[in-house]
């Protein structure tokens, strides 16, 4: 009997520390910021030889026709101004005619909540909004997930246009920057970070 009691007590003591394991400690602590900035580039993109850029004059909201995504447009001008500022700071000259610019930038907003994002979806809207261009390249961009309000910035190289489609050579996704709780300061920080972590976007 004593032997059995000792055995049970021993195993209880042995397994006791397991109670504190497997709990992902300190996950989502109070200071966790849900904003994130992802940038992807075409490594063959000729950023340094580009000289001019054009920026679409509105933020495209990716919603089916007739529906609303609930994203405020009150920050649209600020977003575009900040992108413009970063591009000129990187040494590029702003032009108003996209056809005469080496780089064409477009800005989009979405509140997709499903996992997995398909470029085909927004390419359709992109084409609808700006029919001279398209996308679909490169394919690895399909793997990102955006489950909350996300700001997307795409950069196409006009010099590589074929069949009225210019390939994207840079892409930025800024999550949690167009939904509730966003501030002007957070938007600026996010856009600045997208360019800061893409130092190759530079015209000497």
């Amino acid at each position, binding site marked *: 009997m004593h032997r059995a009691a000792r055995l049970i007590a*021993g195993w209880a*003591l*042995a397994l006791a*520390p*397991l109670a*504190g*394991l*497997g709990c*992902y*400690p*300190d*996950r*989502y*602590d109070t*200071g*966790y*910021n*849900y*904003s*994130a*900035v*992802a*940038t*992807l*580039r*075409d*490594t063959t993109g000729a950023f340094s030889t580009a000289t001019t850029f054009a920026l679409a004059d509105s933020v495209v909201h990716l919603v089916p026709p007739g529906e609303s995504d609930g994203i405020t447009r009150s920050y649209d001008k600020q977003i575009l101004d900040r992108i413009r500022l970063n591009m000129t700071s990187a040494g590029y000259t702003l032009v108003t005619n996209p056809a005469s610019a080496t780089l064409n930038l477009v800005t989009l907003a979405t509140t997709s909540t499903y996992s997995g994002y398909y470029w085909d979806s927004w390419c359709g809207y992109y084409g609808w909004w700006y029919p001279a261009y398209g996308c679909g390249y490169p394919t*690895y961009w399909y793997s*990102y*997930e*955006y*489950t*909350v309000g996300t700001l997307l910035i795409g950069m196409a190289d006009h010099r590589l246009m074929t069949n009225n489609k210019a390939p994207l050579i840079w892409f930025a996704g800024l*999550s*949690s920057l167009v939904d509730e709780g966003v501030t002007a300061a957070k938007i600026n920080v996010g856009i600045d*970070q997208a360019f800061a*972590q*893409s130092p190759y976007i530079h015209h000497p």
Partner: protein
Amino acid sequence: MRNSLRFLALAAGLLAAASRPAVAQTKVIGWSYDWSMPMGDMKDYVDNDSWLGFVLEGRRLQGDRVSLGAQVGYYEFYKNTTDLITLPKGAISGDQYRHVISVPLMLSVFVHAGQPGRARPYIGTNLGVYYFHQTIDIGTITADNDNWIFGVAPEIGVLLPMRGTSGTALHVRYNYPISAGSFLSGDARSFQYLSVGLGFYTRTR
């Protein structure tokens, strides 16, 4: 695959070399609480020491000097960071929570010094597989994956008998999974860590 076969061959060789006709087969069963320091690729991913480590172990002394045994461990490593993640074709920034669970399932061979009833230093190695569960949260995205990887864990320690059949144990173990698998970075990694443990054991014949 070739590395896996090498480890299996090494494990079989060590176990065969250690196997001798039993003279006085003393069993030792115990557990330990481990502190761990990340090394190798683990240090690159989670550069934080861990106080979440636990090992259950049993070994059987084959005579006075050599023991064969088995152990299963559980370790967690985690870190909150804002380090920039650099990708081959881009980068990701933002608050991150990085987490790794490691579960080693090992067979062990040890050579013991000292005399029964007194402090018994030992040296040896553990061979087996590591299960790794790697997780990262960044922004609102969570990604994770699992890997089973062969590895070796050389170990030194000492068994310190106390009253009756119980005792305490101290050990230092270097967990060295081979570079294999497919981690969140998309390539093979070797998530190594050094563990220092304090344990308790009981002896039976």
